[in-house]
């Protein structure tokens, strides 16, 4: 294990920033969702890097929980997207604006 921990953290930060750009610039709900997945994975990478840095497995367990919650989130989110698509034949987030003031 010769690679400095900071490199992993920086990689994690870069991936998180790219995921944020995806969330902010995409309009297709599915692609926004994929960008959110990228952000979640970046955070998991940071958690595991911290776990290695402190010689403590709690970080890995937390990343494991994060994966479980992400799986549940993906399932519900995709069901919502499918329901929206059935109703209005589009997944463009600009078209679902009933709750906007």
């Amino acid at each position, binding site marked *: 294990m010769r690679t400095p921990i900071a490199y*992993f953290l920086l990689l994690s930060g870069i991936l998180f920033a790219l995921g944020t750009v995806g969330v902010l610039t995409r309009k297709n709900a599915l692609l926004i969702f994929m960008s959110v997945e990228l952000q979640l994975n970046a955070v998991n990478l940071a958690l595991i890097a911290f776990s290695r840095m402190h010689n*403590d497995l709690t970080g890995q367990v937390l990343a494991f929980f994060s994966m479980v919650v992400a799986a549940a989130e993906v399932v519900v989110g995709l069901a919502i997207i499918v329901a929206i698509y059935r109703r209005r034949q589009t997944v463009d987030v600009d078209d679902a604006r009933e709750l906007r003031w």
Partner: protein
Amino acid sequence: MPLDNVVFWVFAPISIASAVGMLVVRNAVHAALFLVVNLFTIAVMYLLLDAPFLFAVQIVVYAGAIMVLFLFVIMLLGVDRDVDLKDRLFAQRGLAALLAVGFVAELFFALRAGIGFATKAPEGFDAVNDPGNTQAVAEVLFRDYFFPFEVTSILLIVAAIATMVLAQRKARAVTQAEMDARAATSTTPTTDPDPRELPA
């Protein structure tokens, strides 16, 4: 150059490149495939960080299950036909790039001031992983975090039920024009008939 560094410097650029590719491609299927590549490279990073159990979970759950679900939904909806190619988000795109660059720069300086770019991981992780990484993680999970683990099962059941409720196909929605037509022809439109019994 130690092998760890070689693996890191091979897979980190692939990881960033696939993330960038996911952002720039138009086609949703191509974006999903780029994301699969990205998840695989992150799994390799887990292996470098001595977490082989999470490496396997990452590939099985993310690159396997979740991405198949994504591709399945893309196929089901047929949104791979490049729905909206005209972008109305030029200013937002620039601002987002600025935000990302600022965030990464901030993180860079914070890391340099904090743990520094020379700090290597401490020795002795083999002792933490003693019988094996899976056994060690299981011990922490089932001893210290047993209650959250059980709560997780409730979360998964709720998510499964919610998905079934959301995805079930209900009766066809009746448009306003149809309701007006029905009100004009009959005087008792109190209950909508079952759409399966409607003439085609």
